[in-house]
């Protein structure tokens, strides 16, 4: 009896382990299928010209070449580093300004009344619409690129922070007051930790928006960066270069998001959601 039970239990356990592995396996299978279809499309002679769509093998070879030797002024790593640097400056500025301002907007209604109309008007101007004026102001410099990242990332920082802080249950603030806490202590120990998950969601959106806007801006202006790399691929009629650039942009964007999610789990150990992941 107990032997049977043990067998059943171990079956259940391995079934559960399989179930946990399954989504990853499905995802990998889908990616592999995509690459296979791509390869087939380029392998059948006359179906798709390699000038339009190079084969996966060509792209991998090109990837190796771009890592090994400079193209349009830098290796692939060089272009990626330049992009990441511009992105970091813009995003850090957006967080540094957007998060404190979001807190202030949530806590100070008069400030909200002053700032909101102008902010609402400005945030419907797309980041790319700022490129010409940014170039006029700062020239074709890192500042221009970082400014575009800032413009793309800032709204998500400020809006989510304001929302997060204003959603904190006022009873917690009252409890802190009756325990003798002043505004600064209440903000630091009660309001910000409770608001943090929603702020983090804003940061994830901001990071993604900033990254996408940067690559767009680099297509238009600049002498380095991943966006510049793919525009050079177009000029040099090298679809493989374009595809390497696009893939790198996608993978780096996804990596940024993974890192931020890990960071959130470490930074907010007390959250029910991070203690028991839903997925």
């Amino acid at each position, binding site marked *: 009896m107990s032997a049977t039970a043990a067998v059943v239990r171990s079956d259940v356990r391995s079934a559960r382990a399989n179930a946990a592995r399954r989504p990853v396996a499905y995802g990998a299978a889908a990616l592999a299928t995509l690459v296979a279809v791509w390869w087939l499309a380029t392998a059948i002679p006359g179906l798709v010209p390699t000038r339009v769509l190079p084969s996966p093998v060509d792209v991998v070879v090109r990837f190796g070449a771009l890592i090994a030797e400079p193209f349009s002024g830098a290796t692939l790593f060089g272009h990626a580093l330049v992009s990441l640097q511009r992105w970091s400056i813009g995003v850090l500025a957006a967080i540094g300004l957007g998060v404190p301002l979001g807190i202030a907007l949530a806590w100070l209604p008069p400030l909200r009344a002053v700032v909101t109309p102008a902010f609402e008007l400005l945030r419907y101007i797309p980041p790319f619409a700022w490129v010409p004026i940014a170039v006029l102001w700062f020239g074709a410099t890192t500042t221009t690129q970082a400014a575009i990242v800032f413009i793309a990332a800032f709204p998500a920082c400020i809006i989510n922070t304001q929302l997060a802080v204003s959603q904190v*249950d006022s*009873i*917690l603030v*009252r*409890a*802190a*007051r*009756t*325990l*003798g*806490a*002043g505004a600064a*202590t209440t903000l630091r*120990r*009660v309001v910000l*930790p*409770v608001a*943090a998950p929603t702020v983090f969601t804003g940061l994830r959106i901001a990071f993604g928006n900033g990254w996408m806007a940067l690559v767009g801006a680099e297509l238009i202006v600049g002498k380095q960066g991943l966006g510049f790399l793919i525009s050079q691929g177009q000029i040099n009629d090298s679809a493989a270069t374009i595809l390497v650039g696009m893939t790198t942009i996608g993978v780096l964007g996804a990596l940024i998001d993974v890192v931020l999610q890990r960071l959130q789990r470490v930074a*907010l150990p*007390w959250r*029910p959601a991070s*203690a028991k992941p839903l997925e």
Partner: protein
Amino acid sequence: MAAAAASNAASPPAIAKMELRGVSKTFHARGGETRALEPCDLAIAKGEFVTVVGPSGCGKSTLMMIAAGLEAPSAGEILVDGRPAGPAGPSRTVVFQRFALFPSETVAENIAFGLRVARTERAEIERRVAEQLALMGLERFAGAYPHELSGGMQQRVAIARALAVRPDILLMDEPFGALDAQTRTVLQEEVSRLQRELHYTVLFITHSVEEAVYLSDRVVVMSRGPGRIKREIAVPRDARWRGLEIEAAGNDASFLAAKREIWELIRDEIVRQ
């Protein structure tokens, strides 16, 4: 002006730990005025457990928020040890119905909150936190986060947090209202035991007449429309049923009589509307 308000309360004890004098509240909203609280006088002696009961909408929660300093009265004043109480602070800590624990802090950190704010010495903080953990039966949960605890355990933490700063008066705003019946009974019995041993000064709000009688030295019945203090009923500290479980106490004739008397007063209010 405030001094002219006639006292309709029972004669206040010689030394009031906390006193509400002619406290009233009028809300202004959309051009209109709503009188939430007629002038109220209430004095609570050191070591006394006073409960305010009344139908919903009688202003008992407003009275509590004013006593805590979380809301300003439209008129009147709040005295602690005969002096104006000032804004909200650790002399009057509150246990809220919805616990109001800080979710990012552990049980021990929550309990230590008021002590750390007051820059109490580290060793003293540790000593008082340990004392409260033991008092509330929370030793095993010192490192747990609030979301990992049941409602009853969370409210124990909230009580410990409010007591750790050694307030002049503990304010409890329907503290067991959000708990299931069994948990509520256990906590009522524990608060009763603590009160008999340690004699805190407590202002307690509830809509449960049974809870009011079981825990209190004095029950204040409020009426509504607008809220005012209708009657005060003393519950003798040496009553036969003191120290019994709530189930057993509820069968005692004097307990039932007190309960019936208070319930009649409240029922009048509900029927009158």
